């Protein structure tokens, strides 16, 4: 088992090491998330009731945009210096290496968002119970964003204006995660129970784990041809 997972763990370790050497990139994405979410009350007004209502959606949309920011750099540097080609040629499973890169992307850009979300939720005056559900929904949902995003990043690799194109391709595909993620908190506030939303989010996560690394690999092989 450990043998099978070695390429995956190696890829995770390598990308985390690279991220640790370029700390500003990680911090910029997180800061972007914080500032986008904080701009909303400034645009909408300080009415606490309204803010409590829009908090889940605001945090989720902030998370979507923050994920997009890091996705452009998921494969591009490795493509430029030829590392990606070497990975594709190596005897180890290319899909597992890519899965490792996606995992590292989530650890670097998704997990900090999840960890800081309760703090931002407090700013929106969310009750403690909603904070917990929101954090849980982000914990289940942000890996989906990294996984689906990797497919888009692979398709737009080395393409003109890939940053804008990536958002156009990926954001429509994020809609189910957004609906179930933000919906979980709203359903709980409405007294409807949040378990169904989180179960569906979990189902989306499992499906993405199975298919997204594989589709991203196919798309990368097309890009490397």
């Amino acid at each position, binding site marked *: 088992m450990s043998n099978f997972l070695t390429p995956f763990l190696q890829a995770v370790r390598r990308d985390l090491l690279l991220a640790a050497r370029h700390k500003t990139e990680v911090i910029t994405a997180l800061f972007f998330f914080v500032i986008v979410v904080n701009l909303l009350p400034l645009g909408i007004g300080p009415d606490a009731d309204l803010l409590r209502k829009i908090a889940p959606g605001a945090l989720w949309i902030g998370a979507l945009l923050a994920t997009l920011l890091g996705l452009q750099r998921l494969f591009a540097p490795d493509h430029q210096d030829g590392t990606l080609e070497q990975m594709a040629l190596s005897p180890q499973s290319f899909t597992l290496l890519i899965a490792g890169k996606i995992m590292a992307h989530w650890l670097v850009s998704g997990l900090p968002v999840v960890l800081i979300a309760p703090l931002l939720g407090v700013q929106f005056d969310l009750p403690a119970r909603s904070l917990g559900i929101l954090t849980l929904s982000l914990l289940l949902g942000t890996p989906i964003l990294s996984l689906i995003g990797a*497919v888009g990043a692979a*398709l*737009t690799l080395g*393409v*003109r*204006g*890939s940053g804008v*194109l990536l958002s*156009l*391709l990926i*954001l*429509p*595909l994020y*809609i*189910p995660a957004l*609906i*179930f993620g933000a*919906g979980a908190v*709203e*359903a709980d506030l*409405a007294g*409807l129970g949040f378990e169904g939303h989180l179960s*569906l989010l979990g189902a*989306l996560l499992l499906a993405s784990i199975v298919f997204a690394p594989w*589709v991203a690999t*196919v*798309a990368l092989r*097309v*890009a490397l*041809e």
Partner: protein
Amino acid sequence: MSASLFNWFKFASPASFFPLAGRLVPWFAAATLVLAAAGLWVGFAVAPTDAQQGEGYRIIFVHVPASWMSMFIYCVMAFWSALGLSFNTRLSGMMTSALAPTGALFAFLSLWTGSLWGKPMWGAWWVWDARLTSQLILFFLYLGFIALQAAIDDPRRADKAGAILALVGVVNVPIIYFSVQWWNTLHQGASVSMTKAPSMAHTMLLGMLLMALAFWAYTITMALIRVRCIILERELTSEWVKKNAME
């Protein structure tokens, strides 16, 4: 190789498909004109005025077929994409890119006519109904597909990347549709429902079917014309284009 199999693959080559498409175009163009004229005549002259909606309902003769086609064309694109990826045929990718603009056009037409219908009927240009929202997302998927293909210079890579995107999209469309539907019902009961249509007069149904067939013929005509242009663009340097097609 059996004879029937041979025939199928004969037209998978752009060189032999190009003249076939050229011969088919006038027929489908004529069918478009005849069917559209008949459909519009039935829709505007024969079909009775609706008891509840007055004359305003007549937009469905454009709106409903356009919505059908926009969804159907995406499925056809996914079909050609799957074929292109599994058999590595060049023509499949060309067909996919030839269909995309027509699909986007119908998705936009469906949204536009729906909006025109919604203002007098619902009193709003736009409501966040599940159907409207998922149609809008379908329009975005078309735009994403076209933008991706336009951004890639190498046509073979553009075909394959587009094929992967179309397949990812077609898997996601039902998920998006059901999630949007649930999202809407969760917020509030639908204030307007498009599903509780009263039983339709036969002439109305006939007009709608004629228009749907006209849109089919139009789609095929446009796709064939566009695929001929794409073939010429890509095969400009090959012998058969110089010999036959440039006459």
